[in-house]
């Protein structure tokens, strides 16, 4: 059976992917670098990410049934398409490492004292492997099933955070320069490539009237959530925001609505735990799809055992040097992101516009003939 997901499911996956990577360490890191200007930075980066998705949807509208590889092959040729796919595979792999490392640190601090990364991997790897292996249909349906609970969890965090704000103060932007803004934007570009997976599943989204609008609505919804989250977080901790690395848990730490229900940070913990599994599953699925596209013969022989062996080998290789990779990622990840999320999309925009103009010219000629 050919895999296919609805626009609602695609929208939910976009929501979860966009949301899950930005609610932990990023708020404090951005604040450390730019102070309250982090609000502007996050607004620009989220807008950029939303724009990327918009471009991808336009691409889908143009090439309804083609895979991203087929689109790239058509526009740039097979070799370049394979190179881009290789870069995407690298991105997905690094994103998984990044996801695991960040969340391991967070969960160790929050709930798993003295836990070793091996234990975390023992839980995390089999589940994301199962999610990825079972395919996009079930992955999307599972995300759809838990979506309401995740949204309720986030809304609770926001509401509890809001209730703990003692005094609203307007943010002041000091020592801001174009150079600093540009540098920050460039440095954190890697964190905003969550929609890369969309390109890999682009052919699997069922096209119906208004499918693009549905996906974009979920993205706007998420955009709004994240932005409100950042405002509340900075309002709760004000100038000490940079000290709180686990934003989603810390945002509710000062709430006075606890009453008899102590330990409300469990809500945040559950939200994080649920979202990291999806993100991991989607990234691994995308990684597997990219690899099988680069080496098409492996599709025929792909089965559970080869899948697991490949994944275990890759992870063993990477996890012997997770920390190193994390450092490399911070130093060089932005360059990879630059190619994948700036150069390739810009080229695609030109391609879409250029092709539209071509069609218009052709239509014009036809009309002249008829007249």
């Amino acid at each position, binding site marked *: 059976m050919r895999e296919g997901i609805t626009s609602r499911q695609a929208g939910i996956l976009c929501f979860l992917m966009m949301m899950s990577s930005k609610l932990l360490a990023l708020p404090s890191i951005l604040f450390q670098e730019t102070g309250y200007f982090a609000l502007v930075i996050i607004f620009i980066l989220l807008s950029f990410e939303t724009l990327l998705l918009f471009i991808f949807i336009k691409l889908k509208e143009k090439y309804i049934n083609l895979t991203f590889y087929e689109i790239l092959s058509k526009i740039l040729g097979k070799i370049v398409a394979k190179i881009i796919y290789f870069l995407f595979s690298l991105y997905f792999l690094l994103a998984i490492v990044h996801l695991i490392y960040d969340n391991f640190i967070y969960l160790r601090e929050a*709930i798993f004292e003295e836990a070793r990364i091996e*234990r975390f991997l*023992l*839980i*995390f790897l089999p*589940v994301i492997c199962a*999610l990825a292996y*079972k395919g996009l249909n079930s992955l999307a*349906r599972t995300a759809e099933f838990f979506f309401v609970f995740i949204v309720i969890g986030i809304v609770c965090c926001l509401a509890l955070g809001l209730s703990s704000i003692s005094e609203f103060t307007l943010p002041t932007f000091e020592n801001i320069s174009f150079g600093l803004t540009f540098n920050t934007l460039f440095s954190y570009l890697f964190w905003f490539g969550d929609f890369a997976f969309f390109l890999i599943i682009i052919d699997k989204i069922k096209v119906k009237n208004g499918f693009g609008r549905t996906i974009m609505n979920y993205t706007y919804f998420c955009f709004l959530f994240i932005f409100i989250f950042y405002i509340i977080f900075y309002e709760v901790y004000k100038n000490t925001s940079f000290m709180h690395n686990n934003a989603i848990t810390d945002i509710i730490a000062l709430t006075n609505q606890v009453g008899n229900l102590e330990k409300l940070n469990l809500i945040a913990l559950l939200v994080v735990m649920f979202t990291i*599994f999806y993100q991991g599953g989607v990234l691994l699925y995308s990684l597997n799809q990219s690899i099988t596209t680069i080496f098409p013969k492996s599709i025929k022989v792909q089965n559970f055992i080869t899948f697991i062996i490949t994944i275990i080998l890759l992870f063993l290789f990477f996890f012997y040097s997770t920390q190193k990779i994390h450092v490399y990622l911070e130093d060089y990840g932005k360059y990879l992101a630059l190619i994948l999320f700036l150069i390739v999309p810009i080229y695609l925009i030109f391609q879409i516009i250029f092709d539209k103009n071509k069609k218009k010219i052709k239509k014009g000629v036809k009309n002249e003939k008829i007249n």
Partner: protein
Amino acid sequence: MFFNVEKNLNYFKSKLNNNFDVSSRTIMVGETKLGLLFIKSLIDKEVFVNSIMSPLLEFEGKNLNFEILENDVLKIFELEKIETDKDVITKLTQNNLIIFIDGEKGAIATDMEKAPVRTPAEPPTSSVIMGPREGFVEDVKSNIALIRMRLKTDKLVIKDFEVGRYTKTKVCIFSIDGISDTALVKKVEKKLESIDIDGVVDSHYILSFLQEGKGLLFKQVGTTEKPDIVVAKMLEGRIAILVDGSPIVLTLPFVFFEDLQSSNDYYTNPLYVTFMRIIRMLGVFLAAILPGVFLSFRLYHYKALPLKYLITVANSTQGLPFSPFVEMVFILVLFQILYEVSLRLPRYLGIATSIVGALVLGDTGVKAGLISSPVVIIIAMSIIAVYTVPEQAPQLTVLRVIFIFLGGTLGILGIVAGMIYFVNEMNTLNFYDVPYLAPYAPRISSDLKDALFKASVTQMEKRPVITKTKNKVRLKK
């Protein structure tokens, strides 16, 4: 078969191993000799005397043949001419009387059924406060009548099959022409035709053959004991499968959320029903994960517990000889043993065992310092919660054990991982091309009116999309 009556009688008696309850009688009607062959234990003597013997003895003609016998003598409806030895044996074992005529080839079979039939009573698993109390019985004919009483339409289609080399069990597929999905009916027919088993004793035998794929942990076929539910499901576009000898009727296609629905739901206030369904859903979660979650918090994340609760737990678990994991498994096994014992013992002894188990073992165990009261409460809550959705009890019991293991070894992350894994597994299931967690995953908006939330009957204008019915309109306005 022979032309001679005696030879026929002896031949078929020997074919049935000369069993004591295989009886025969030879009578002269006019100048014609008749042989009657039947199984004593299966025929109704009153019907035999009134409908067969009396008309035969009152016959005033000289000669008798099958045509006269069928048209002028016997005034009963079901008469069938049979020609082969195999048919004679089959009909004999299916409560029929076989009549041979001397000098004529073949025989006549007529149904003389005297099966012990239970009167339709309220099934123990799905009792209602307000609503029909009839339940199916073991006799398929009575069950067919119970459905026909509610579906008075010429669109009702019944296809019957004989399954089981020895039991020759009657299996019937019920569908409504124009509403049920014909592709599904054909698929089920094919499956039933392909069954070659020695015997079918209950509908669960058929259920096993109707299951698809590897997802054996999850229930794939709907089951009910109530005719009103069967009819309601058929009107939604589902099909029903009745098996002779079983009061359990199977329905297809089946989705997980069907089991959250109870027959009570359709005879009471929709708002109340919505609330109760949410409670049932909560019951499902509690039944499966509560002991695992408790164990994970007690073992790994005790700091995440509210302080007052942590103190209570710490006080009650002080000085226990077992580790929390062993204690949890011990109590769970104890409860399951008590449950099994109470099911199998005679009713009065069962009550006594429950008292011994719950009061004596539980209370004394806690007082003796062998087990802690929070664990007893958690396990008891979890086991009670299973019966908010009794149809899912086997699955929830297995899941509970898995989650205890996950919580005890991997902590809360293990529980979350397990939940995601099992929900994902359920989402891979497409039994009879219907997503298992529909209408929530994938979301089917029109079907949400009778899922976790229940709309009024006046608002349910269309049949569920998942049944792939052709006739979608249910309520015309």
